């Protein structure tokens, strides 16, 4: 069986409903049962928290006893903590925190992260917009803006999370990577693989919002070669994180 590493996990408390695997103990047990070795984990509170320092502290605390969960702190250009963080990746929530990826302050922040080999992970959305709380309509981050950010830093990796299959056609920058969590056509990865390939595609489940086995099932498609499955499952992200 392929090693599977999940780039799109969250823990904590989502403001609008409880999620079955929001607790890190339950999440890690489910990951193990599903054959997923671990993953990059962000905070469920960070998108709406008025104080992302608190959200990040809570994230590290929740992950402390779970070595397979690698905390991904939230950053935003108007909070100075991005200058000091030490992590393999950082989560950006431009729509929730209301800034553009192409603002000069954002470009300065992302440039500094990349200099320190911290992967910027752009969260396009956390939910299907149709199901959001009616008083809390958060638009998705425009796919073209993410591509523009990646083009601004040629050769440096940028990761987009939670793109719909149709948004992949905007991801033309060769240094832009994306996960498969929201990508579901028929078969699930058909459109994405045909239009984006597999060299920059990453396995991300978006648990605890989404079901782990639903996301894993996307890899069970006869048109994917064992090498392609291996790249999506873990090799692509390992190259970004560890250079191997």
């Amino acid at each position, binding site marked *: 069986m392929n090693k599977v590493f999940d780039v799109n996990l969250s823990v904590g408390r989502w403001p609008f*409903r*409880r*999620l*079955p*695997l929001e607790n890190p103990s339950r999440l890690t047990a489910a990951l193990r049962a599903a054959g997923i070795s671990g993953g990059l984990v962000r905070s469920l509170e960070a998108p709406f928290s008025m104080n992302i320092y608190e959200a990040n502290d809570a994230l590290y605390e929740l992950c402390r006893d779970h070595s397979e969960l690698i905390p991904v702190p939230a950053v935003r250009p108007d909070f100075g903590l991005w200058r000091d963080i030490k992590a393999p990746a950082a989560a950006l929530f431009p729509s929730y925190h209301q800034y553009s990826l192409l603002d000069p302050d954002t470009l300065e922040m992302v440039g500094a992260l990349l200099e320190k080999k911290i992967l910027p992970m752009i969260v396009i959305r956390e939910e*299907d*917009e*149709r*199901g*959001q*709380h*009616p008083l809390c*309509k958060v638009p998705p981050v425009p796919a073209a803006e993410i591509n523009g950010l990646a083009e601004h830093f040629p050769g440096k990796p940028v990761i987009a999370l939670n793109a719909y299959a149709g948004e992949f056609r905007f991801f033309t920058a060769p240094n832009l990577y994306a996960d498969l969590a*929201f990508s*579901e*056509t*028929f*078969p*699930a990865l*058909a459109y994405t693989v045909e239009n984006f390939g597999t060299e920059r595609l990453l396995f991300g489940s*978006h*648990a*605890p*919002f*989404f*079901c*782990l*086995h*639903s*996301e*894993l*099932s*996307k890899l*069970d498609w*006869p048109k994917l070669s064992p090498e392609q499955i291996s790249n999506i499952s873990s090799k692509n992200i390992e190259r970004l994180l560890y250079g191997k």
Partner: protein
Amino acid sequence: MIFDIHTHNFKAGSRDLYGEARRHGIGRILLLGDVLRHGETPTEEQVREINDDTIADVRTHRDIADGFCFMNPALDPEFIRSEVARCFAEPGMKGVKLEISLCCRSPLMDTLMEELEKYQRPLLHHCWFKTTQKYPNESDPTDIAVLAKRHPKVRIVMAHLCGCGYRGVEMIADCPNVYVDTSGGQPEDGFLQYAVKRIGAGRLLYGSDAPCRDFGCQLNKVLDAGLPADILEKILWTNAMELLK
């Protein structure tokens, strides 16, 4: 055994619906038609064309597929009666599918509902609680509840559990003639477990919405919900067989 109660036989651009179903161990699928081929409010001729295709597909794939007649309930009552009769005369055509032609609170629904009661056939109705992107005549669970209470002898499948959400389940909880299918949107965790607790497994049916969605992804949403085997069997097979017999 697995029965997928929500699939669409699109005329153009669809990959191998039947082969994919088999690959995922799905024994039977219900074809609901190419319901938006002619937009939100199809004419009589367009409805007939969509149904002709479903009838042909059911005939060709009788080993795996049943079908539903598609209808625009705002059309002339005489047409509704004759088209429903035409479809139900075909083996394997088991009920009626409605999309977004008319909000189902409308009294214009009554002709169709009376036909369904007469034939004792179920209705499967598109449904969603939407914050954005709502179609003008799209029905939500409050509309389904109104329809169900006005026609308590007709069994109604409210489509798209994950689009209707917790509140959607609440809206139809006291309507024993309303079932819910598990399709709709992303494979979100938590809604199915909630629905089982709130309305019981006897009113839940597995549906994928393929090829708008992927069989494996939507099926694993059910299999991954931590439900006991007897409840899974109801949702995946028994309830559909009883509804469509």
